């Protein structure tokens, strides 16, 4: 696998994707300036529903869905440039959990499940995934939450944490244990009990925990058991790829924040950007981002060829590791290079550093990715 990995240098990027990238870049720059990001942090909803409606109108929620369900069938990799731009603008929307949930239902759902839920997602209905549990592990297959059969229904028990936008989701894909195996079950928003908003490091996000106890849903809400293992693997890889896109976008605007400050702040009679102690790390952030983007768009290319191959998994994990490393470094240095101001809430450096903690802790940090890579490669 190692030689094959080193030999594969394929990056495909169509004119259509280029248009998408360009449109997303302009849209995010227009709709998510930093003062808007900060204003939304203060609001309970955390995102602008009018902007979200525009995202759906641009076709972003349906990009990875088949045309039969109101999507455009462009493939999941096509979301990479969009999510990268959203990361660049620290843009808060439910796009990522929504498209992930949609893709999972499409992959492992029955026709009876796809028909009601997918067209709604394509139109901009919010969906999400409830995977996390209190033990904090990254293994998606280890669920303490469970379901038991009870005639035509299944009864859920346990609790889920770190669920994005659970308060507004029409449908939630919940991971549980059923008869000793991992299963995925669809729960509708109205079926959830009390939600507790969680206090998380990335304040642009709206994240909830809730108990599953007392929830019963029809048994036909279980996703196809034969496809569950695939679905879990898809969730992990697709999430890693979009995290990498978000992280690299964020790192890039974080670098812009650094450069702006290095080009305006003077100390000892000189612009501080003239000092190599600051200039050289800025150059290192640049090369990290550039190389990360090469790895990311390679991953997106392989993902759309066939997401399920080991080659794709390798490419995605490489992109995630590289993206986390540079996003963390960029955010960390942004704080330091702003000096005393960098220590304040007012300085934008914290926004990027906080977001890089979220992305790193999501679906496996760089060290975790490298452990997995080693097992795949050596």
């Amino acid at each position, binding site marked *: 696998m190692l030689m094959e990995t080193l030999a594969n240098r394929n990056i495909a990027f169509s004119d259509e994707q280029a248009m998408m990238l360009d449109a997303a870049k302009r849209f995010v720059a227009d709709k998510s300036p930093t003062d808007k990001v900060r204003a939304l942090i203060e609001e309970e909803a955390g995102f602008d529903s009018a902007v979200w409606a525009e995202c759906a109108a641009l076709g972003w929620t349906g990009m990875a869905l088949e045309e039969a369900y109101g999507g455009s069938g462009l493939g999941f990799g096509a979301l990479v440039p969009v999510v990268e731009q959203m990361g660049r603008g620290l843009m808060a929307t439910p796009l990522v959990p929504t498209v992930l949930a949609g893709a999972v239902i499409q992959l492992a759902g029955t026709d009876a499940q796809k028909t009601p839920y997918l067209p709604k997602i394509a139109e901009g209905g919010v969906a999400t995934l409830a995977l996390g549990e209190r033990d904090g592990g990254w293994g998606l297959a280890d669920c303490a939450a469970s379901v038991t059969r009870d005639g035509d229904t299944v009864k859920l028990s346990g609790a889920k944490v770190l669920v994005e936008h659970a308060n507004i989701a029409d449908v939630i894909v919940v991971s549980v244990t059923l008869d000793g195996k991992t299963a995925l079950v669809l729960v509708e928003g109205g079926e959830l009990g009390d939600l507790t908003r969680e206090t998380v490091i990335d304040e642009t996000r709206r994240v909830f925990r809730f108990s599953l106890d007392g929830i019963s849903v029809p048994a036909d809400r279980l996703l196809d058991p034969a496809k569950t293992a695939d679905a879990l693997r898809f969730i992990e890889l697709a999430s890693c790829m979009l995290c990498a896109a978000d992280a690299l976008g964020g790192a890039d605007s974080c670098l812009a924040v650094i*450069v702006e400050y290095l080009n305006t702040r003077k100390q000892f009679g000189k612009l501080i950007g003239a000092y190599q102690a600051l200039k050289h790390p800025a150059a290192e952030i640049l090369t990290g981002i550039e190389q990360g983007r090469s790895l990311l768009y390679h991953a997106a290319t392989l993902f759309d060829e066939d997401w399920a191959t080991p080659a794709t998994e390798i490419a995605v994990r490489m992109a995630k590791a590289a993206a986390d490393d540079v996003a963390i470094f960029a955010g960390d240095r942004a704080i330091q290079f702003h000096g005393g101001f960098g220590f304040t809430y007012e300085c934008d450096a914290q926004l990027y550093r906080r977001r890089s903690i979220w992305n790193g802790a999501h679906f496996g940090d760089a060290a975790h990715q490298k452990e997995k890579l080693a097992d795949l490669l050596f």
Partner: protein
Amino acid sequence: MSIDPQERAAFTAEVKAWFDDNAPADPGFLLPQSFMEVGTDQQFEFLKTWQRKVYDAGYLGMAWPKEYGGHSKPQWMQDIVTAEMTKRKLPFMVNTIGLNWAGPLILNMGTEEQKKAYIKGILTADDIWCQGFSEPDHGSDLGNAQLKAEKDGNEYVLNGSKIWTSLGAHAKYMILLARTDQEAANKYAGLSFFLIPMKIDGIDPVPIKKMTGEYGFCQTFFDDARIAPSCLIGDEGGGWQVAMATLAFERGAAGGQAGGHSMNSQSVHEVVALARKVKRNGKPAIDDPLVRQQLAQFVIDQKGLHLNGARAKHKPLTEDRPAAVPLMGKLLGSEFQRRMNEFAILLLGQNANYYVGDEDAIDGGLWTRSYLNSFSATIGGGTTQVQKNILGERVLGLPKS
């Protein structure tokens, strides 16, 4: 430009077959890893013969114009040949400076006479080229070069010295950056660029022993050496611009090279093979979790380096900073080699003590030698630190240091 896949496959097969039949056998003595380490006449003659053979087969300078000695073939053909040579780790093309930066420079800026005089000899390896840029007191500060070229009658008289002259003892020609005007408005304006003969009175290349124990560089002394005005390339006083164009070729930031690989560097798969072979705490080193993570990181780095070029072919994916990928390749590639070879030494354990020449040296002492030699690329052609200044200033727009 789309290439007919059948034509491509047919050519690739032809190239593979030729190298199957013609790759040189192990000469029985240690070969240099790059043009910066050619220390003996035996090594030099072997490499020169090999370059000539590759040229005669039509596999060098394929995309250079036929009228000057090239083959006027498409670049993709040369790229296939070069990649095949690199993959097989065949001996490199010894006339590296001629093929990769003096040649492209002459084709780009030289006069018709200069192209006719120099290009073919570069390809055949009959005319070896060296480079006179750095001076003992002016390395990274290249613009401050002080070697004098003073007009005397119809000639320039050269006085001073250049250092790190790779292949200096074997070279027939040198690309030389010299100061023609002591009184110029600034340090750059006084510089001129010459293509000069080496085998003339007053030029003396003296070999320097390197930290690896090998030779390969010279310090070249100029003592009233007289050259003709036709040696000038570009305008008198315009040497800095020519030197910058040359460095863009040297750092791989501009195309136009004759092809053929110029250096045998290590690939991460060789370090992985080493980690399987050597032991740590009684077990193969590759079982150690930290070794595994570090090796995975090197795979990411090596793959990333390759993918940068693939991404650069898509304009929308580089349009924010088009100069970044071309300007960072030398920095990342050279530092990657240094770090990976350094790590390989750690894998050797106690055996890291054995060096080239000892029968117990693992892989013939390759790793230590490669590590020490890797500094030639992190220092030569503009140090890593200068490269970071360039990225910071030209790509990010930070103020000059």
